[in-house]
């Protein structure tokens, strides 16, 4: 079983690496790039919202900030198209992270519903700023990013694909590490009962904020890469509320709080969404189908695919099912010998 745990993801990674070689058609690799980008975003969103349980619906703001950061850097520093802009991705991410620090601090002073709304409000403020700060962002006319003119038609998508894949691996590694760390356990405890966790010594404030900033960092990088890929951005496009909705839906579909869930959700939803955009080009249909799909997913699979599968799997495997309360512990031995625990703090 353990071998499967290591071999599985590695095999999957190998498939992803080989994918563009097997399906070189630019139409397909374009969809693949978008899918990878959203998979990264969903994984990053899950690091915050999945683990802490605070649903943030304003992360598209950081996506947009990253986009504009890259556009501005390329414009001001006259960066040519090619491989160079890729190196600026972490910088764009850091810019987004820098914004997320004070914004996250403010937002995290609230809980639950107020939190969701304030993240939405922050998003709209950022969008409006992009519209209004003409001098900086060129307003609604938008900005352009450098175009790698030396890359041929067939080759064009490949660097984007592999950089996007790299970002995904990075995000996934971060998510995995956090999940297995003491820090991650603290986040999950916050999700279950924040005040209880606080009373047990978990530093809830810094924990939540750091997860928020980390996810914003990734969103910034994804936004920047996305902007570079599509070559131009404008406020409504870089700051698009549907991004938040799509990312949230992907994470929910796959299983909020799981490692692979968001990726699974992205793999299912993004290609579907691209297909819809092409097929139902008339805007009206697209929204209707998307919305209905949304509704069906939430009502049918409220917990997400992976957790539902897991439950089914556990039921099958353990016969009676390990879900029922277990009678064993109490009442079995009325006068149980008390085994004394060792006193003294544990040496790590």
């Amino acid at each position, binding site marked *: 079983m353990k071998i499967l745990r290591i071999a599985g993801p590695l095999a999957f990674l190998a498939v992803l690496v080989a994918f563009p070689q097997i399906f070189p058609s630019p139409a397909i690799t374009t969809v693949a790039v978008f899918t990878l980008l959203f998979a990264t975003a969903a994984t990053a969103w899950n690091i915050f919202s999945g683990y802490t349980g605070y649903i943030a619906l304003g992360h598209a703001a950081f996506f947009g900030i990253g986009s504009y950061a890259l556009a501005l850097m390329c414009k001001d520093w006259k960066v040519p198209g090619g491989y160079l802009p890729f190196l600026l991705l972490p910088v764009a991410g850091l810019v987004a992270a820098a914004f997320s620090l004070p914004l996250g601090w403010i937002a995290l002073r609230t809980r639950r519903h107020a939190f969701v709304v304030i993240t939405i409000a922050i998003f709209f403020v950022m969008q409006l700023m992009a519209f209004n700060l003409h001098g900086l962002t060129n307003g609604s006319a938008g900005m352009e990013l450098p175009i790698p003119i030396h890359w041929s038609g067939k080759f064009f998508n490949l660097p984007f694909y592999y950089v996007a894949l790299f970002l995904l691996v990075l995000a996934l590694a971060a998510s995995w590490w956090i999940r*297995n760390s003491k820090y991650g356990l603290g986040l999950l405890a916050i999700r279950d009962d924040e005040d209880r966790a*606080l009373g*047990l010594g978990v530093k809830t404030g810094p924990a939540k904020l750091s997860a928020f900033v980390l996810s914003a960092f990734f969103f910034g990088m994804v936004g920047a890469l996305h902007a570079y890929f599509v070559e131009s951005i404008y406020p409504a496009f870089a700051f698009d509320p549907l991004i938040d909705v799509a990312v949230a839906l992907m994470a929910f579909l796959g299983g909020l709080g799981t490692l692979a869930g968001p990726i699974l959700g992205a793999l299912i939803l993004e290609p579907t969404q691209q297909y819809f955009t092409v097929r139902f080009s008339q805007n009206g249909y697209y929204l209707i189908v998307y919305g209905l799909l949304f509704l069906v997913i939430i009502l049918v699979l409220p917990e997400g695919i992976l957790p539902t599968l897991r439950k089914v799997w556990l039921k099958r495997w353990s016969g009676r099912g390990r879900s029922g309360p*277990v009678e064993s*512990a109490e009442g079995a031995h009325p006068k*149980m010998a008390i085994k004394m*625990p*060792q006193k003294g703090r544990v040496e790590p």
Partner: protein
Amino acid sequence: MSLLEVEGISKAFGGIRALDACSVSVEEGSISGLIGPNGSGKTTLFNVITGYESVDGGEVRFEGRSITNARPDRVFEYGIARTFQLTRVFPRLTVLENMHVAAQRQGLKALLGRWSTSAEHRRALELLEFVGIAALRDYPAANLSYGQKKLLEFAFTLIADPSVVLLDEPAGGVNPTMINQIADRIRALNKKGITFLIVEHNMEFVMGLCASVTVLHHGRKIADGSPANVRNDPAVLEAYLGA
């Protein structure tokens, strides 16, 4: 100097004075009881001590130092742990994970390391065995019965080696056999040096376990002393039985 002292604490919620210049002290190494009719302020006192509520006036002192209005995580680090009247565990985490939430290691390096070292793992299992639910360690805490959750909460309060443990109705809603088990464990831990302050309504439990008892009524202390004295104190009888 008592280990834990509360002096002149007042706390009001709107018009209701939950605590009214209340003073209680807990001696080191004792098992003390805190009783009183419903609404007398017992749980509010716990909340105030552990930082879940702020005080309107008065002081909370631990080992001589003032810890008034300290945040719950600081209070825990000082060495004061508590359980809740309505048991609070982490439902979606397994029993073992529940045990590890309580901070034991400090510092950034510890945070980024694995959620459980082998030494911590051993200690967690030890405590789970001590309360008798080690067999349940991989089940989500939500699946445990009420009594098992109580035991779990009791166990993880102990994991970071507190000096004082505040128990809020440990015998509430628990069958008589287990009540005795809980009492035995409290005594055993007390012998090892842990101080207990217990809020309870179950008089037999309190009188049998506690060396000293404090009685609250309307947010004030109206009596304290040995169980025998308190049991016969007219003020106490009136509070419980009278108007």
